[in-house]
């Protein structure tokens, strides 16, 4: 967006001075030119957070739960994140879906963040629910 086009534009770039020497070559491949997953991930997160900040999220009324590792994929850790509702929250976990929301199945109470990591996951045997703290 240059010259007479009056739209402010920002480019996220790997470095302002030390660019990949493999750019525009046949060596622009994973492991050579793309050699830092850390930098890659942080750049995407920064760009995404910027546009989300500018556009201003409207939290949904209902709680939407997301798990980055699903039980059953041999992971012992399940990372949960959710949006919606109002904090604090209770995190429920059960091996059966029917009684999931019982108080006996609360594994963490009054969580104020929208993130929770369960390090005691059992593959194929867990269900989760996030509820607003009464």
């Amino acid at each position, binding site marked *: 967006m240059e010259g007479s086009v009056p739209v402010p534009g920002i480019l996220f770039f790997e470095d*302002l001075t030390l660019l990949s020497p493999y750019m525009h070559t046949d060596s622009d491949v994973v492991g050579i030119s793309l050699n830092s997953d850390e930098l890659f991930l942080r750049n995407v997160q920064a760009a995404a957070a910027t546009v989300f900040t500018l556009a201003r999220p409207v939290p949904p009324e209902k709680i939407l739960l997301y798990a980055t590792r699903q039980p059953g994929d041999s992971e012992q850790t399940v990372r949960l994140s959710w949006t919606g509702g109002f904090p604090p929250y209770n995190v429920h976990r059960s091996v059966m879906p029917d009684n999931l929301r019982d108080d006996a199945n609360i594994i963490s109470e009054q969580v104020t963040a929208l993130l929770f990591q369960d390090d005691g996951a059992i593959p194929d045997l867990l269900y989760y629910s996030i509820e607003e703290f009464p």
Partner: protein
Amino acid sequence: MRKIFLINILALTFATLSLWAQAPDPVIETLIDRIDLDRMHADIDTLVAFGTRRATLQGGLDAQDFVYARLEALGFADLTLHDFDANHDNVVAVYPGVTEPDEIYIIGAHYDSINDLGPAFPAPGADDNGTGTSGLLEVARIISESEIRFEATITLVAFASEELGRIGSKAFVADAIANGKIPQSAIVMDVLGYHDPGSTLDISFGTTDAANPIPGTMELVDVIVSVIEGYLPGYPWEYGDTCT
């Protein structure tokens, strides 16, 4: 591409940081936590497998169709191919704002690739710009799957023909303005994953003529600095000249 680190601009940005400092939004925090590196790598592998994605070659057309199909599968109803010349098209997905739909923010990345030796030479383009393209698709995924809505409109654009002179992005902005849909600002991801072992690992961003940017740019820079400080605390950053 000129890359000059501008200490004076950096100092100015630090000076204004306190004015923009704000607590991180937990919704945004959880959204960016969902960005999945494995998914992005899988998309890069797909893009690289298309071969050179030059705007005049089949690989570029395959990349265009891949991006379009992914956005369609994610449920973006307002999805178009922006045809501005005889070569490949921009892929444009609009995520309409709830309360301020005419307030438009662009997030984009170019999907084409070239080899400086010429069209006959391979240009896998994993870093330039498989990183930005896969990042754009990941942003699309987390928006779609989260069902989060925004007050303003987010328009996601996979640009064609960047490597031939930023033809796609220029055409997109020109047509947007002609149609009265003037974006407030544009955030572009381009070449995100090479780290020189001798340099500091930091987030770099900039604009054309960073010392004398067009109006509104420094306010945008302040937002980005606030975002980095809030969501990636302690992460170094630098601002300077890039091509946008």
